[in-house]
């Protein structure tokens, strides 16, 4: 079950074809796109960085869990690294299965776990020239009395 990082644009069509299987009656995919705003700030571009050695291992564990838990036939996930422009695909998850329910549930499981568990960091570059590491800057402020309250997990 392949999980991989890539520095090139993600080709969703190629990934979709790689999951085709005559035993499958359904396929579900999720694409995460670079959005032009976050928490009220206009975003110009993004930069993703990963601890790849650990990220690949943990990514493969997540895919194995989804296979075992939901009984899908095939599953794949790719995460982009480096500089991305608004509208580009940051992450792609797909699953094919005998029936639609397993495919939907497996894809949802993988994207949720990827967001919480993989050592990947996102730096946003804003239209006004500022930049910041998402989830890191404000919670690191010396006067942050309740760091967890400011932690976004969506």
């Amino acid at each position, binding site marked *: 079950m392949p999980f991989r990082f890539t520095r090139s644009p993600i080709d969703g069509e190629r990934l979709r074809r790689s999951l085709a299987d005559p035993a499958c009656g359904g396929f579900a995919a999720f694409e*995460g796109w670079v959005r032009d705003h976050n928490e009220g700030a206009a975003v110009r571009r993004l930069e*993703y*960085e*990963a*601890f790849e*050695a*650990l990220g690949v*291992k*943990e990514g493969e564990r997540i895919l194995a869990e989804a296979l075992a838990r939901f009984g899908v036939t095939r599953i794949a996930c790719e*995460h982009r690294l480096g500089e991305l422009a608004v509208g580009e695909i*940051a*992450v792609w998850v797909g699953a094919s299965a005998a029936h639609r329910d397993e495919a939907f549930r497996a894809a949802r499981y993988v*994207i949720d776990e*990827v*967001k*919480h*568990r*993989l*050592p*990947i*960091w*996102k*730096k946003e570059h804003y239209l006004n020239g500022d930049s910041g*590491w*998402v*989830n*890191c*800057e404000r*919670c*690191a*402020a*010396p006067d942050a009395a309740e*760091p967890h309250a400011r*932690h976004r997990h969506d």
Partner: protein
Amino acid sequence: MSRRALTVQYYALLREQAGRREEALESTAATAAELYAELRQRHAFTLPPELLRVAINSEFADWTSTLREGDTVVFIPPVAGG
């Protein structure tokens, strides 16, 4: 106290604050928690350890894990994949 040769790799905000991707050092820190305290002071890291995870030799580890000669340690800031 014995000193151990360790490698520390930095990512994201910690990489920027340390001004490097990696450093080789000798430390008397017995655990990952002690090592972060030492390095936080040296590099003025803003992230408190409660917000970090730690990996030793490319696997998630406990903060109380005992460090061994030659270990590679990575402190993992709050993640933001997807």
